[in-house]
């Protein structure tokens, strides 16, 4: 028996357990620290338990490459230290590919101050039923330039699965985000393209936000196209206090206070509260103390998308769902605007000045509601044809 188990250990155990889990942490952390320009750090196949953040700092042209997102799994289930799974900071041309970061106690992969950060074939995931104890962000580049997120997956984040914040020149493509509070979020970021992704089963599928009190103030120039944004009706499980806690469950695409956005040729289907929600920061009810902050969305074009939803009341417990349900019953319009426009961008007749309007045209199944938030929802009404630009 003893011999048998010894043999079994030999046959099964040896190739995988060639070093202890603690040694794994140390070995790879050392490699991350000692990496030279041009190095590729290869992560082996298998499931590896880590107890502390793996961090890469001040490096140029370094690749961290696993054997594939379903083959190399870095599990942080027993993490005792560090606020994220992997952290990359102050770098240039960093490529992360072919691995999964699982069950990080905080954020899964945070990259900050990197010029040229690419995530390819990377998964971030919180296992089990999604809940507020899950970490905030999955793929989390912040204050980066030249961000590429390609063929990645993000699952179970209590804030946003794919979250690009305060960054410039961004492409998020061919990726999947599900069972997060927000699937994909572009926040206070400039010049982003979100294309060919699938966002489903989140509380909100894709968010484009501009928030106050941040270092990079103004986002914008965002293109959201050819995405499949469907069935984002998951209960919003974000811890209170976070801005995504106020994203109504059942939201497909949400635009908050951002400028110069084009949304086209997306499939926006069965998001039961709001296929697309366009609001100013006022509507969140949060105070604005940042004098440099512009809380209004403007210069937005939503065209050639496909909208569908099932007959039924809006989902979730957000006050907006209640308001929409009360006013529209089971036939909620697909596109919801709070009706608040930047007064400095209107002419004397109250029309948008050239190039600043919010245009919603040529969408399949298009229907629009104006919430009239300014007048406390008094004239909340259908406004199917009132978002055409004259200028």
């Amino acid at each position, binding site marked *: 028996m003893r011999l048998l188990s010894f043999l079994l250990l030999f046959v099964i155990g040896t190739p995988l357990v060639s070093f202890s889990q603690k040694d794994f*942490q*140390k*070995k790879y*952390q*050392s490699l*991350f*620290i*000692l990496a030279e320009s041009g190095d590729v750090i290869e992560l082996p196949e298998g499931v590896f338990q880590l107890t*502390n*953040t793996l*961090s*890469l*700092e*001040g490096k140029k042209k370094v690749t961290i490459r696993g054997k594939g997102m379903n083959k190399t799994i870095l599990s942080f289930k027993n*993490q*005792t*230290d*560090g*606020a994220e799974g992997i*952290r990359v*900071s*102050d770098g240039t041309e960093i490529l992360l590919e072919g691995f999964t970061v699982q069950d*990080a*106690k*905080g*954020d899964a992969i945070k990259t*900050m*101050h990197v010029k040229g950060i690419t995530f390819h074939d990377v998964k971030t995931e919180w296992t089990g039923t999604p809940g*507020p*104890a*899950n*970490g*905030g*962000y999955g793929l*989390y580049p*912040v*204050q980066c330039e030249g961000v590429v997120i390609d063929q990645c997956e993000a699952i179970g984040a*209590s*804030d946003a699965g794919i*979250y690009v*914040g*305060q960054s410039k020149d961004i492409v998020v493509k061919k990726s999947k985000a599900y069972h997060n509070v927000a699937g994909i979020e572009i926040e206070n970021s400039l010049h982003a393209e979100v294309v060919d992704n699938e966002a489903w089963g989140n509380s909100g599928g894709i968010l484009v936000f501009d*928030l106050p*009190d*941040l*270092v990079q103030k103004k986002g914008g120039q965002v293109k959201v196209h050819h995405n499949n944004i469907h069935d984002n009706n998951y209960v919003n499980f974000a*811890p*209170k*206090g*976070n*801005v995504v806690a106020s994203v109504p469950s059942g939201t497909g695409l949400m635009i908050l206070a951002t400028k110069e956005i084009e949304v086209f040729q997306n499939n926006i289907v069965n998001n039961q509260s709001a296929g697309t929600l366009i609001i100013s920061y006022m509507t969140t009810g*949060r*105070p604005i*103390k*940042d004098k440099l902050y512009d809380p209004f969305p403007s210069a937005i074009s939503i065209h050639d998308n496909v909208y569908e939803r099932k007959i039924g009341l809006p989902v979730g417990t957000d006050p907006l769902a209640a308001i929409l349900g009360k006013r529209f019953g089971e036939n909620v319009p697909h596109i919801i605007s709070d009706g608040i426009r930047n007064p400095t961008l209107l002419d004397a007749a109250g029309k948008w000045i050239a190039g600043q309007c919010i245009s919603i045209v040529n969408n399949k199944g298009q229907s629009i509601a104006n919430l009239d938030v300014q007048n406390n929802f008094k004239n909340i009404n259908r406004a199917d044809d009132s978002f055409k630009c004259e200028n």
Partner: protein
Amino acid sequence: MLRIVSIGIFCIVCLASFTIFQKKTYPDKLSEWNFFKGKLSDLSPAKEVVPYALNTPLFTDYAEKSRFVRLPSGKFVQYQSEGVLHFPEGTALIKTFYYSADFRNPGKNKNIIETRVLIKEQEEWKALSYVWNDDQTDAIREIAGDEKQVQFIDKAGNPQKVRYVIPNQNQCKGCHNVNDQMMPIGPSVAQLNGNVSYPSGIENQLKYWNQHGMMQNLPSFATIPKTAVWNDPLSGDLNARARAYLAINCAHCHRREGPAQTSGLFLTESETDITALGINKAPVAAGTGSGGRLVDIQARDANASILWYRMQTNNPGERMPELGRSLVHQEGLALIKEWINKMK
């Protein structure tokens, strides 16, 4: 003649290679630095190694710290009223973390964990961590971090256990970071403006530095700023002590030039924008760290404040500071709680 020339060439080559060697490598053992004389674990400073202390230090899981500075021979710092002093190239800051077996008997039966050496190079500071061996005879350089189980008796006589985490080289820069440059956190004149016990007696550090040629252009004492001692009410009022505590424990990241600039929460002592200080400020990317609370600081209600929540949790994804603590600093938490609860 030929022989002299060849020796000369040899020496140039050896000097050159020595310079390259100097640039790229550091001693593997703490003893090789010669910071201390006699038995290493006594931490008795060698010549030109001078002890220093901060008025309000960073909390590191109740570890005790001894700090020394070594300026290159004949070099000095210029007085500057704000910020970390601009030390000359070649300066070493030497900080040792240890636990006394019984905190009621400090300094006796020390368990020395690590010594961190910050070296000022031409452009940048370098951080090196030396982990002490179990025999306490020397400390070995470690780049990838480590952890140690530590036991001690606290001031109230209760046994305590700590899983002390030695940060990896990158994590050093997680805190020691101004505009992505490695920087010391503590030694500003305001923090150094206090007394230290020297072999010659107790003296104000700045005066001592000035008298011993370590600092130049010291102005009249009345004009020198002084950081309050967080747990000494005689040193400053509640606000001054709380702000000093937040500055040293949080503001190395939570400042406009620091790694937490993305949060918009800035806790330096000089911050005057009350939103940036966190009052009624919504969090940006707190995730679960919000603890279900809506704002960083809710005046007069510590319980409803994310700042308080993140100080009192031990969850690595939520706790603040992110690094350097696995225990809650109960006394610091009490100070911040009182400060928030008594806000006007």
